[in-house]
């Protein structure tokens, strides 16, 4: 590729970073430093190399981001090929992240891109720490929650209690479902996080069990009947075998049973594809929705990195179901959000020789916490449950134990109590001379 052609590609980047403009952020100042930062320093992590991921990688790479890593645990499936355009027929079965990275590296000269065929949960904090921006194209709420909390966890506070902004890694989260999509900008500890308005997410579609059992009206009802009621009754592939939506024999069995039921109730429309869709809760992916949402995410990444314009504040929804509708609004931070809430872990100084009962007494007397019947766990291990009775019975043997037998210095305890709207984290410090104030 000739130098001239490469230069031409950059022209637009020069235009928007070297001149001021009416939409620029107030603290924007045109400078070559912006592009130098974008090319040489700014590291972006793309989470997910699926429908959104492919679009995101293409958009980011073509917008001038040169240091990109991508992580995905999946391998290419033949059904991905219609929209996940970084993959070809011969890539089927290969790791998505690696194939996608190789494709981008081949097409865009001078880019530094790395693919990780791995689970996001298995990466250490330090992996995430190295990035300036994280852009997510995920399909699971679980993974988003985890990523959100991990990035919040990385934010450090200064001695005066203010946020150390150099530890803040913005999360740009894209999501699509059929013709609908959303893009949002989450600045951990500074703007609303994923957990702050988790209830915004519509629940998974499910049908009343009695309708499925007795009064089916839709083809979906028949398929659910086969997979939820007939499967556990008949155990067609051996006792204990669970329905696997990727196993063609399983899907075929369910499809045939569903069809029998549909005939019985004169319901049209049960197909093999629909059966698999219902079993796997597939919502058809629409390439154009992915393209629009990913473009918005990449645009936000570019704005955050250069400040050429105000970033999205902070939620954009898109609906292409009937016409084209989009709207942007600000979701608000929840004061008592369990992930980014302003309450820091409360530091508690104790003597290692205190018993657990002593600690609970001190917590009860604490005028800030105002708890009455606290329950405590440490890294998923039960310390003490004040209720229900069976857990109280099972954990009260810990009460006379000394704290140094139960805990490690600096550990975080989860405290819940009916008086606290959510739980609270406590951090335990050992101090020889700590006295209980009786």
């Amino acid at each position, binding site marked *: 590729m000739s130098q001239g052609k490469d230069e031409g590609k950059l022209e637009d980047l020069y235009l928007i970073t070297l001149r001021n403009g009416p939409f620029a952020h107030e603290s924007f100042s045109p400078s070559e430093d912006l592009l130098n930062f974008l090319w040489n320093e700014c590291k972006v992590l793309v989470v997910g190399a699926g429908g959104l991921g492919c679009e995101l990688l293409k958009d980011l790479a073509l917008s001038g981001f040169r240091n990109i890593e991508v992580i995905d645990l999946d391998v290419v499936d033949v059904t991905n090929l219609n929209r996940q355009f970084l993959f070809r027929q011969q890539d089927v079965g290969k790791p998505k992240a690696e194939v996608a990275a190789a494709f981008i590296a081949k097409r865009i000269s001078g880019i530094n891109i790395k693919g990780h065929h791995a689970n996001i949960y298995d990466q*250490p904090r330090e992996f995430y720490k190295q990035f*300036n921006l994280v852009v997510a194209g995920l399909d699971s709420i679980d993974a988003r929650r985890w990523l959100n909390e991990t990035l919040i966890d990385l934010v450090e506070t200064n001695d005066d209690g203010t946020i150390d902004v150099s530890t803040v890694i913005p999360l740009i989260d894209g999501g699509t479902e059929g013709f609908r999509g959303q893009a949002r900008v989450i600045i951990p500890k500074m703007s609303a996080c994923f957990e702050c308005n988790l209830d915004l997410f519509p629940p998974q579609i499910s049908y009343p069990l009695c309708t499925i059992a007795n009064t089916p009206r839709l083809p979906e009802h028949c398929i659910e009947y086969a997979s939820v*009621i007939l499967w556990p009754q008949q155990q067609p592939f051996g006792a204990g075998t669970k329905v696997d939506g990727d196993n063609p024999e399983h899907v075929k069995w369910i499809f045939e049973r569903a069809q029998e039921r549909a005939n019985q109730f004169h319901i049209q429309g049960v197909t093999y594809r629909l059966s698999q869709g219902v079993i796997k809760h597939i919502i058809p992916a629409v390439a154009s929705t992915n393209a629009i949402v990913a473009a918005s995410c990449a645009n936000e990444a570019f704005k955050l990195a250069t400040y050429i314009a105000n970033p999205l504040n902070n939620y954009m929804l898109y609906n292409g179901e009937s016409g084209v509708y989009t709207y942007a609004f600000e979701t608000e931070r929840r004061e008592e959000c369990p992930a980014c809430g302003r309450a820091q872990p409360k530091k508690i100084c104790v003597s290692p020789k205190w018993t657990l009962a002593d600690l609970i007494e001190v917590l009860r007397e604490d005028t800030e916490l105002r708890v009455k019947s606290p329950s405590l*766990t440490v890294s*998923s291990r039960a310390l003490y449950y004040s209720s229900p009775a069976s857990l109280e019975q099972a954990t009260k043997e810990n009460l006379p134990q000394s704290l140094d037998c139960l805990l490690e210095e600096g550990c975080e305890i989860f405290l819940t109590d009916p008086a606290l709207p959510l739980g609270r984290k406590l951090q335990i410090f050992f101090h020889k001379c700590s006295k209980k104030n009786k």
Partner: protein
Amino acid sequence: MLKLFSLKQKKQSAQEQTENKTSSNKTTAAELRLQKDISELDTGKTLSVYFPDKNNIVEFIVYCKPDEGIYKYGCFAFRFKIPPTYPHDPPKVKCETKVFHPNIDEEGNVCLNILREDWKPILSLNAILYGLQYLFLEPNPDDPLNKEAANLYRDNKAAFYAQVQRSMRESGAYYSR
């Protein structure tokens, strides 16, 4: 406002990592929520909860002992499994005691709206416990899972009552006191 490029931060590269702690895939928020819900289970006189493993509270059994109505003196075990996506998704609940009931089938599936289509994250485990108790006090024959039970309940209360007694004796659900 946050200004990324002006921070001029040099991000540590992944190779320079020293500490290599692998984190778990449970989120703090989800764990805290479940711990809170569990420690506030409202069992009253007619329910009891059993945890096979106190350090793994995602699986437990609720015993329901109605003190009035058709199912009085019965003891019915429900196995609860809390998915990692709780409270976004509802707990999975199965009845492990065979019972003749319009809304519970032979396999122990329970037809309770908040266990499926009407579940919302603002509901808690207590809402499900109340729901289960209510099913024993007021079976709902209009949304049946066990059609035979529903029809009998609607058409012949006395015969239904006798059938319930028989099923409770057969399954050992009866508990003496």
